[in-house]
């Protein structure tokens, strides 16, 4: 038992040393003393792009929605969108980005503030969609990280049915 504990401590110490040394040598090391945030760990934007993407919370989202200043985009699959979504949101499933976004001549106005969301803070689609939009020239893109989970938990109104990008463009 004593040997086992000693060996274990030795193995952990070696692993820890190798890991920390390796991290130190990485060009893009893990920020070990920071609390994990999905926005940080996402792959860096293209060269020259600024990290425009930031998180907004539900209070901010409600204010912006009331003022009608944003385009709210739901990044989940269409089936989930049809069941329930935040009122006024547009469906743009990430897998169908090309179909619904790239092939259109009229896109979301580039100067308009865009907020993307998906199911909850663990789903990556809203963030990926936001990054794609930034790459296509949108300057003000935000992510409502908590997504549908928080929205429904707070008993805020939801809408059902489909509302696609096509309708937004009309």
């Amino acid at each position, binding site marked *: 038992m004593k040997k086992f504990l000693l060996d*274990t401590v030795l193995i952990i110490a070696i*692993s*820890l040393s*190798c*890991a*920390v040394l390796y991290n130190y040598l990485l060009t893009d090391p*893990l920020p070990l003393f920071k609390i994990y945030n*999905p926005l940080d760990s996402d792959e860096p934007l293209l060269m020259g792009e600024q990290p425009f993407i930031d998180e907004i919370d539900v209070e901010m989202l409600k204010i912006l929605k009331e003022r009608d200043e944003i385009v709210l985009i739901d990044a989940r699959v269409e089936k989930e969108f049809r069941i329930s979504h935040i009122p006024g949101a547009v469906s743009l499933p990430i897998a169908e980005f090309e179909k619904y976004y790239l092939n259109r001549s009229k896109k979301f106005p580039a100067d308009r503030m865009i907020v993307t969301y998906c199911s909850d803070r663990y789903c990556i689609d809203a963030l990926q969609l936001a990054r794609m939009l930034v790459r296509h020239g949108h300057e003000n893109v935000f992510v409502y990280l908590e997504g549908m989970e928080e929205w429904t938990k707070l008993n805020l109104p939801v809408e059902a049915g489909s509302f696609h990008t096509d309708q937004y463009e009309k």
Partner: protein
Amino acid sequence: MKNRIAAFLGHYSVQFLCRIILGGLFIYASLDKIARPHDFARIIYDYRLVPDFAVYWIALILPWFEMICGLLLVSGFMVRTTTILLGLLLVVFISALSFNALRGLDISCGCFTVSDTGQGSLLWYILRDLLFLIPVLILIFFHQEKKKTAKAA
């Protein structure tokens, strides 16, 4: 009959094979995670089982722990300790996968690769990890420490 099975499983070639399989498995599993720590951190976060402040640390140390244990096992050092540690690690993996399968999470396994293409059913991963426990059990119960064999001789 029992003695025969024990003698067979304790035989050097069977033990050697188990060591190579288990050690090799963990070395192989660690490579992609070591190469892409950021992607692995994302996968750990997706498991929703560890607090946010621990995500980066686990993402960094776990693959190196697998690598070191694998190397020690393959080269025949600290066989019993590394086997027990890897066995415990497998039990942790199986529990984490089962827990997430039970609560209906559809997540990337992050077992051998950190890319999304490595996705499959969680049930299959659990079954596979259970199979990996076989060499662990053989090594724990039938491995003869060098000292003992020297004494016996």
